């Protein structure tokens, strides 16, 4: 009976409070958290959500270096996205600069700030998924909790597992090519021939694997059972409530500040 725990052992990284949630919940929460940000384009709601998110991550003991590593590229990307909005956003209010299609106005600058914050929020929300990314547990959750078809979920899982083997295959293939006397070609050409060969190899293995799965009774009419239970618990409910609260807070702040702007509104 104790053996039921197997297959769910955590990877080497120190567990965070997020790990108490089911992987499916984490995916769902990431989606849920993105919705209030997506429906409005304003800086108040985005900033509120950003603060909530970081507060939650820190409270859940997500290591700060990890957080920094994940968000660093965003600091590079977000300004560029903002510039685009500043230059081509629909003008409104005072116009500061105009040249051909470019118009910089009060309104486009405000939008640019919103876009900047928005990219930060949406990008960093993916941190919640880290560690929940064990494909086996995710598949267990998708099939048992969301009731997606087992055939689809497990077939996909088996295919996806090969990504873990790509690196290993790449090395073996490099060794084999070296042994066959065709390993001396230029670096770029070798990269592309090997990448293609790797794809061919993966498909070939996938084809065989499908046969092996059927040979073990997969895909038959019989109702399937699950060796690893995937359940929802108190942590999942708590996560849901916190996320809903953060979403409500950010929309509420925007409404209160009067900056709320539904993306569908076609303003002047």
């Amino acid at each position, binding site marked *: 009976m104790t053996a039921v725990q197997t297959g769910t052992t955590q990877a080497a990284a120190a567990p965070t409070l997020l790990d108490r949630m089911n992987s499916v919940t984490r995916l769902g929460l990431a989606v849920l958290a993105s919705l209030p940000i997506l429906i409005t384009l304003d800086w108040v709601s985005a900033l509120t959500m950003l603060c909530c998110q970081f507060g939650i991550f820190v409270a859940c003991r997500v290591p700060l270096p990890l957080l920094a590593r994940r968000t660093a590229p965003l600091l590079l990307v977000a300004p560029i996205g903002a510039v685009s909005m500043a230059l081509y956003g629909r003008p409104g209010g005072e116009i500061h600069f105009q040249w051909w299609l470019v118009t910089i106005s009060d309104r486009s600058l405000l939008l640019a700030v919103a876009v900047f914050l928005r990219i930060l929020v949406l990008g960093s929300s993916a941190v919640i998924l880290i560690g929940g990314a064990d494909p086996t547990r995710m598949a267990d959750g998708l099939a048992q909790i969301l009731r997606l078809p087992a055939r689809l979920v497990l077939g996909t899982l088996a295919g996806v*597992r090969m990504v873990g083997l790509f690196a290993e295959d790449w090395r073996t293939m490099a060794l084999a090519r070296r042994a066959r006397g065709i390993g001396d070609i230029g670096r770029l050409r070798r990269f592309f021939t090997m990448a293609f060969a790797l794809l061919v190899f993966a498909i070939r293995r996938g084809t065989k*694997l499908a*046969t092996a*799965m059927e040979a073990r009774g997969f895909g038959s009419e019989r109702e399937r059972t699950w060796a690893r239970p995937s359940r929802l618990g108190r942590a999942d409910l708590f996560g849901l409530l916190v996320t809903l609260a953060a979403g409500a807070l950010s929309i509420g702040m925007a409404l209160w500040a009067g900056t709320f702007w539904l993306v569908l509104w076609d303003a002047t």
Partner: protein
Amino acid sequence: MITASGWGWRYAGRPDWAVRGVDFTVEDGERVLLLGASGAGKSTVLAALTGVLGGADEGTEEGRLLIDGKHPTRVRGRVGLVMQDPESQVVLAKVGDDVAFGCENMGLPRQEIWPRVHRALDAVGLRVPLDQPTGALSGGQKQRLAIAAALAMHGSTAESAGPGILCLDEPTANLDPAGIVEVRDAIGRVVADRTTTLLVVEHRVDVWADLVDRIIVLGTDGILADGPVAQVLAEQATELLAAGVWVPGVPHPLSPRPVHASARPLLWTEDLTTGYQASRPVGRHLEVSIPKGLSTVITGPNGAGKSTLALTLAGLLRPLAGRVRVAPGLQPEPRQRGRRSSRTLDPADPHTWTSRHLLTRIGTVFQQPEHQFVERQVREELAVGLRALDWPQPQIDRRVAELLETLHLTGLATANPFTLSGGEQRRLSVGTVLATSPALIVLDEPTFGQDRNTWTDLVQLVLQILAEGRTIISVTHDPAYLEVLAENRLVVTATP
């Protein structure tokens, strides 16, 4: 009950039938050993029985092959199959999950699954943690895993829609001698109560002779022999020998060379540590010396690190510590530099050589044949190395034709290497390396999956290459191979 009447299958894109004119009946609970030459269609029969051969556009079926009167594709799950290639059957990322996978598909209740997983892993002697990644298993360990998965599905308490059928395709080909006994006994326990029908394909008759009731021999057109073990072996020995069956008690026709002692070493190691990651060394402090012109054979249990050592000696894997050294006669010219500028050439260290240096000096056959194939036709595959050496075309053609003949692959010259049978793939991969006749040849399990005839020709080829003064290192579990070629023997023991 399994009934075959005039059954045959031809793979799409192949002119010849893989099997044809097969007639037999197997009762529930019977135990059958299916024999036949390499390429006779044994794996094809098992795949058909499991219902995984594919639809009408993947091949042509003729005659009937039925399980209790039904086409195998309609009773999927009744038949469990352990396929020939252990590498391609790993479904999930962890050992425990992978064994449980089949049980889940059978609809077993959860509380029954995990005890079964433990029992099955114990039975095949795969003693690793349940959350061990399946990717980091040796060839033999993967084979044990595949068998454990099938055993767990077919444990005696399985309530299923009719008695189960267990098909095993060369289940012991990659196992060490102790493992063969262990696995055979485990399978014996599963079929002990006669509720499970057993079909085993294997070239070595002696392992299974005591367990099975009956032998069926596949020939080129239909069944060559069918009957109780002792009777068939006694009455039809000559036909069986002609078809490549390893008839127990009949020794193979080859004998060892007279060995001249005290050869000088061609390659040696200095305090070598092998492995894939620095944190998990596989072999430690190895002092190995390979005598020039002799055949060195490496043996040892599954997972002991034989393949890892072989790849390191061959200059493919980087040593984790220590060095591999090569005698001056084999070293490349120090000035002759390849384009691979990232490695600085040390002529005595094969890991720093270029791919072209290796080609004429050290050739390697991997344990997994498929890893090595780079072309779309068998013929092209054999020519790859010769092309890299800039041989003229007519000479390449001659050499390739010669090899095809020796390897019994002439009829498959234009086939895709990946569609060959297990034994054919093995011969081809050995052939690709022998083609360029490097001075030192490293062979990882060169004879698995061979029938008696192809085995003899393959070993003869190795002997011929030795006679040319070349040096050979082989990793093997094959006792017959050891008898002929263990001129120098290295035993690798598992490090705890």
